[in-house]
């Protein structure tokens, strides 16, 4: 355990040093923290309840263009778009976080076992990974959500059910090379159990890689959630960005040219995913210094 923490600390301090050097990575961390703060203080900065139908002087405010009172205007049902946007950060971040957590845990475990036990168990786990690669991602989520019912929990479950595959494959490849190293051999000779070798000796070495893949998975998960919500299969109780865009799509916001309704949610998704991908790219350079020399 001490060793794990040590490795973890080392990679964190490396990351901080790197962020100071790379402006782009720094920017993405700032974007990321910005959204995180928005999630936390959403109730404070959102002027309205996102579901509230706004009434003024006895008149409902349908399709209002942007104004000081309604920064991004109102929907066709008279709801404040800015408030929806602020609350929309929550579901997206939640899906991204939890799904990538599952991806890291499941993908790492499967990759480790598949790489360490090269016998029947390893073979089985690799075939399982192949199967996961053989299932079309978006169609699968759509079908599964309609089966399980639209909720954040089910969306996270469906996404995680397939997204671990990339992590598992890369971790297996890495484990295969590490298990041949002399320190693993030494541990084995000195009588360490398989579990001890896997989790104490091998895992610290592959942890940074699985975290990198986890961070990329976060981006894919957020995109997947927004797509599913956009198709109208999202959680009706949570106002995610994809849900806002679905609302605008079916309410003919496009033919009215209501840019204020369409552009902001998309920009939010894009910024968040971009920030994640940039951090991913940045950490790729910490993990594989060779790439940087290229």
């Amino acid at each position, binding site marked *: 355990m001490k060793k794990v923490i040590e490795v973890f600390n080392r990679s964190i301090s490396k990351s901080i040093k790197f962020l100071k050097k790379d402006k*782009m990575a720094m920017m993405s961390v700032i974007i990321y923290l910005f959204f995180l703060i928005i999630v936390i203080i959403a109730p404070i900065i959102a002027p309205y309840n996102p579901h509230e139908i706004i009434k003024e002087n006895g008149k409902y405010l349908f399709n209002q263009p942007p104004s000081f009172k309604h920064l991004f205007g109102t929907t066709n049902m008279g709801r404040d778009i800015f408030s929806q946007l602020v609350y929309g950060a929550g579901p997206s971040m939640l899906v991204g976080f939890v799904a990538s957590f599952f991806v890291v845990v499941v993908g790492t475990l499967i990759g480790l076992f598949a790489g360490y036990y090269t016998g029947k168990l390893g073979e089985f786990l690799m*075939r399982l990974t*192949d*199967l996961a*690669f*053989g*299932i*079309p*991602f*978006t*169609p*699968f989520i*759509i*079908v*599964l959500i*309609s*089966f399980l*019912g639209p909720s954040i929990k089910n969306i996270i479950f469906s996404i995680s059910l397939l997204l671990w595959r990339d992590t598992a494959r890369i971790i297996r490849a890495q484990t295969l090379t590490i298990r041949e190293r002399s320190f693993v051999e030494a541990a084995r000779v000195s009588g360490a159990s398989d579990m001890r070798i896997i989790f104490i000796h091998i895992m610290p070495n592959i942890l940074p890689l699985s975290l990198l893949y986890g961070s990329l998975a976060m*981006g894919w998960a957020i*995109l997947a959630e*927004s*797509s599913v919500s*956009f*198709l*109208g*299969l999202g959680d009706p109780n949570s106002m995610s960005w*994809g849900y806002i*865009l679905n609302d*605008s*799509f079916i309410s003919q916001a*496009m*033919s009215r*040219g209501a*840019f204020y309704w*369409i*552009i902001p*949610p*998309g920009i939010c*998704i*894009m*910024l968040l*995913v*971009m920030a994640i*991908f*940039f951090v991913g*790219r940045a950490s790729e350079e910490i993990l594989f210094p060779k790439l940087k020399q*290229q």
Partner: protein
Amino acid sequence: MSGKWTYIRKRLFQMIIILWIIATILFFMFRLMPGNPLVAYIEPTFDKEQQDILMKQFGLDKPLYYQYIVYIGNLFRCNMGVSFFYGDTVLNILKRNLPNTLYLTIFSLIAAYIFGIFFGILLAWKRGTKFEKAGNIGTIITRSAPQFWVAMVLLVVFSFKLKLFPSSGTSNAGVIYANELQKLTSPDFWKHLFLPGLTLFIYLQGLPTLLMRSNMFDVMGEAYVEMAKMRGLSKWRIMFKYAARNAILPIATSLALGIGTSMEGNVIIENVFSWPGLGKTLVDAVVNKDYPLAQGAFFLIAVIMLFMNLIADILYSVLDPRVSV
């Protein structure tokens, strides 16, 4: 060479097993779906007797294992049943919609790869400049933007504001193409294809661009490129004649892979543009609880994707003899 054939045979066998597992998962998933599958097909006002007749007609009254055996047997004969919603056979509906998906995918993919190859070369050429940095960022932006949102923005601008392109479908209202040839030669069809194609293009071009760029960097370090530089050849010539020709090889693999991956991306785009392809069929079927059609569409998407992955693997092993199989 015999090793290669064993490899291909092994991969083919593996693909069939995966398809069988997918078919099995699909079968049980759709049977266990909540709600009576007949709800979507018949009026709730039908009496019990009429419902029973329809249940029998679709074989829904038999035990599950029996349904499963019939289902797998039928699948081998490409018989995927009758759509609850349309009343037509699933095979017919898929046959009608598959070409639309293929047109959308293939034309966008070709455009994306041609663009990506040249843009990748350009980025490699301008290595270390502001232009390369901007190009890299731009590529990541196109990957981060949700496809349906890009589609919506394009629709607002080009369809609703400028009125340059139609917003949905494959033809103007009332026009029905007699056959695929007539469709492909109709300028109207191409006009309808443009926006969904552009959306897919924007999404797809990132991969070949980044791939070409990094391949160029790899190749440019090789001895024969150094040699060409020493011989004092022009940069243009070195780039295109020496480096690009070799850097392009791995792109072929990713092209096959690209067809597979864009099949799943199509699901979203087709729904924004009401493009009558496999993805739209799938989502409509899921929403209508049209189980046979949803199953069939999903299965076909999986078949195409797996087949393309197989081709990519084979291409990879043929093009790069260093790959041990």
